[in-house]
């Protein structure tokens, strides 16, 4: 009985972590869809989200909802600027140049912000924006943080679905990820849609940053690296470029991480996740939902 309760509790925690990974993975997957690149700086936009929220809530004492909206807008703009400044000049360059630039942007953001005049490299405690309430069920307990995070994820997922499948921009995004050149011939403004994708991706990363720091209230300029890479793994697991794949991948990674920490050792969790990535890349490189793509 006790183990069942323990396992159920871990599942609840895993879903919480998985929700955050899912939100970050959505940004990766969308950018990959339109640009075919791994946006290494995505994890740092996530980190910026946490810091924006920290300053808005702690220093300027905004209410949570306003802080969330402002943060999401802020990170969306940052992601937009990153694309405009760093990635756009390389639109026709080899893929690896783009990848190295992304690594460069990521390092630049981390180390610039870790300077003492900015956020410093230290850990900062993130304030709880609301009272934590725990709801006890007989076998496990759920806090309102769990609920808040889960609902935010579901809500943003629904919004994203609406955006991608019901709006013109979404249709253009899908067209670009299908075939960029043909999409351009159909009169779609590629640059605008790519910028739009980065705006959405940045907004999601910002939201992810807030949710993550509400759940694990300690923030640091380097906090984006591991969640960023793990979310990318989640996107690959689900099949990169596929929305529901990213979400499912996020939950798988979240649950795997929590279970490895609970039953094996927390130092092994990163290893297990990358082992998972390895197995997937070898056996099913297109992910759970991916179709076989041509090899070019």
């Amino acid at each position, binding site marked *: 009985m006790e183990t069942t309760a323990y396992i159920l509790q871990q599942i609840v925690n895993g879903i919480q972590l998985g929700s955050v990974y899912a939100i970050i993975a959505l940004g990766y997957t969308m950018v990959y869809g339109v640009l075919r*690149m791994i946006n290494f700086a995505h994890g740092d936009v996530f980190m910026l989200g946490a810091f924006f929220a920290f300053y808005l809530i702690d220093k300027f004492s905004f209410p949570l909802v306003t802080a969330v909206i402002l943060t999401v807008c802020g990170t969306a703009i940052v992601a937009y600027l990153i694309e405009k400044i760093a990635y756009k000049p390389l639109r026709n360059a080899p893929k690896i140049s783009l990848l190295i630039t992304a690594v460069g942007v990521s390092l*630049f953001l981390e180390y610039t912000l870790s*300077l003492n005049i900015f956020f410093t490299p230290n850990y900062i405690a993130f304030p709880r924006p609301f009272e934590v309430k725990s709801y006890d069920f007989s076998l496990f307990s759920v806090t309102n943080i769990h609920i808040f995070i889960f609902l935010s994820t579901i809500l943003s997922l629904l919004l994203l679905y609406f955006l991608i499948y019901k709006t013109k921009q979404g249709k253009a995004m899908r067209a670009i990820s299908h075939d960029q050149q043909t999409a351009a011939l159909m009169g779609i403004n590629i640059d605008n849609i790519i910028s739009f994708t980065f705006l959405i991706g940045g907004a999601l990363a910002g939201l992810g940053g807030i949710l993550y720091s509400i759940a694990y209230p300690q923030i640091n300029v380097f906090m984006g690296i591991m969640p960023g890479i793990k979310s990318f793994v989640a996107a690959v697991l689900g099949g990169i470029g596929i929305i529901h794949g990213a979400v499912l991948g996020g939950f798988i990674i979240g649950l795997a991480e929590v279970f490895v920490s609970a039953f094996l050792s927390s130092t092994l969790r990163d290893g297990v996740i990358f082992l998972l990535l*390895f197995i997937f890349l070898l056996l099913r490189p297109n992910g759970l939902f991916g179709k076989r793509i041509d090899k070019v």
Partner: protein
Amino acid sequence: MKIKASNLLIVIAIFIYILLKVAIATEFISEYLEQIVLYTIIVIIVSLGLNLIYGYTGQFSLGHAAFYGIGAYSSAIICKILNIEDVYHFVPIIIISGVVSGFVGYLIGIPVLRLKDDFLAIATLGFGVLVRVFLDNSDRISDFLGGSRGFVSIPKITNLEITFFTALILILLTINLINSRYGLFLKTIKSDELATSSLGIDVAKMKLLAFVSGCFLAGVGGSLYAHLYTFLHPSNFDILKSIDFLVIVIIGGMGSIYGTVIASILWVGLIEGLRNFLPTEWMDFRWVIIPVLLIIIMMLKPEGLFVKRSVR
């Protein structure tokens, strides 16, 4: 002509060696500086390995430091078990460490090198994290590996002669490899994999050749490193370290051996040199400037600084 060029290289190298030897003997170079010189040579060896993998063959690897670490740890373990503390017995150990790294590279390379560009990057990065996690937890296997506390009291064996001549031999071997038929195959794979395979060249095998040779070089570098600093810590072999080597290869120029040598010297020289002159607050700016430099190079001269623009 080719033979003459390498003869010239040997002459220059021996000249540099004598210069260094004299400088050390007359205490013109302090012990600290000597250590930096040796470290620079090690960085040259390891970066040369990455240049083979990435610069010549175009296989983007973000896990190079993992192979460096594998070489370092295996060398340290072997020397501790066999109680080796002199240079003569160290020579086979260097080769064995390189072979261990190369073998791991072989095992990893077979599945991973099927992937391309970003997926290869993320897979090699994943391998880097796996190795890091393994090293962090290595004290569960045997306490003397130290785990996240680090591997301590490794015998100090590495000296100028062994480092310098290992590097010289490896550079000459690499030049020979590059100038051979295989070197040509590697370059063609970089410019067009499909066309290369259509010429009847076994692309998978050639990629593996480059990868294994690169990992061998990393392992040799690791072995020398372990017995230079006598202390190993898993954090010395993480992603950031891989990025260090990547930056060197990119700055030096993809597919340029001399570029790699120059870039390694500049890199270590700048980082270690600036440490002496600049106050610590300024040192923090290092990683602000390097990424900007990287981005600018990618925009203006993606082939690297010390190579001519190749004809597309």
